[in-house]
């Protein structure tokens, strides 16, 4: 942590401003609000931050972040263990959990293949995924990667690698979002939706 001011307030503002979604102006407002009632907001926050930094770690099975490893999802006996959903990052896992749409397990890839950024298969959790599939018990892998050029290329790569295992490999559908009007959709999404049309 270099280039941080010595003044404790400015130091706190500078640290908060480094977090996503928080600029210096927002950080200053948050710090001012907390300083009004330090016992009720600052000290619990400091404790929570310390505890999270100490306890949270990646799950050794799926890569999710949790205070325990294996994580709560991997340990949940109600989960369908035949179904593994591959996501780019923990944020995507959390999004799917919020939707309550997937009752299987997850595998966090840790990124997508990006030749120009120098990210290859060895930089992602592809090996652990293949090991997990080879261990048996998984019947379907759902690839839930971003609908970008790199995300789709990664999905094709994973499909090729998983095909010899003889399991079902599926991908999320692309198309019109819920509540989306056609005239405001981008041309790429419209084209994908038309291609993926199904019998009414």
């Amino acid at each position: 942590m270099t280039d941080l001011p010595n003044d404790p307030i400015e130091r706190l503002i500078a640290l908060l401003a480094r977090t996503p979604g928080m600029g210096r102006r927002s950080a200053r407002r948050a710090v001012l609000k907390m300083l009004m009632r330090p016992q009720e907001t600052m000290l619990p926050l400091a404790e929570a931050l310390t505890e999270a930094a100490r306890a949270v770690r990646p799950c050794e099975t799926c890569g999710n972040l949790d205070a325990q490893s294996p994580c709560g999802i991997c340990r949940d006996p109600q989960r369908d263990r035949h179904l593994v959903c591959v996501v780019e990052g923990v944020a995507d896992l959390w999004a799917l959990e919020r939707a309550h749409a997937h009752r299987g397990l997850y595998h966090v890839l840790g990124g997508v293949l990006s030749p120009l950024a120098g990210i290859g298969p060895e930089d992602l959790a592809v090996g652990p995924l293949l090991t997990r599939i080879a261990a048996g018990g998984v019947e379907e892998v759902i690839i839930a990667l971003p609908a970008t050029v790199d995300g789709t290329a990664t999905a094709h790569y994973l499909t090729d690698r998983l095909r010899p295992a003889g399991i079902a490999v599926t991908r999320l559908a692309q198309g019109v979002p819920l509540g989306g009007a056609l005239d405001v959709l981008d041309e790429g999404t419209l084209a994908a939706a038309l291609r993926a049309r199904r019998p009414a």
Partner: protein
Amino acid sequence: MEWQAPAVVLDVRPHGESGAVVTLLTEAHGRHAGLAKGGASRAQAPLWQPGNLVEARWVARLADQLGALSGELVHPAAALAMEDPLALSVLRAATSLAEGALPEREAHPRIFHGLVALIATLARGAEAALPDLVRWEADLLADLGYGLDLARCAVTGTQDELAFVSPRTGRAVSERAAGEWRDRLLPLPAFLLGQGPSGPADWLAGLRLTGHFLARDVFGLQHRPLPAAREMLADRLAALVAPPADPG
């Protein structure tokens, strides 16, 4: 400073929380980067996908600044190629080659028009676009000063039965003149001479031919390997030509 022109998106790198540094290929301004504010946002991310044809507008106070980019989608090539692994590989290979090989802000109109034509052909499927990709790579070599000489045999001067290329000089060699060196020469697929139809084996031979010179003369001089996307395309095509043996 300001310009507006049709452009092909070559590369997008996140910048900050929702911005992106986008690299484009234009006819008059060559490979040109700019900052797209909100380029990685939900609204703009579909626009700035590598391979998309856009109408781009670049604005800066000084010519050598990064400048700000905005744009409108003209042809969603990335979305159209996504379902076909081979088509997507072709698109990624072409954009990553242009991004890595072309000097910044130097016009290469032939390469721009070739890439636009390649993207248009890709709409008919990867099989239609692969010969065009190999020809475009040969044009890329020529534009950068490392053109192949496929007009006549380097040994006999004949224009007939040209079947190989010297990996050292990039000049064609006829079937008859190849003699005992044929194993050391690079096969020259007939479609590069404008002769006859072509198939996956010919496209792979073409990619190996242009790939050799791109790796040695273009990327080798930058002390970099061929882009991984280009290698992945060759691997995918090689798997098509020689499918893995059934273990059963």
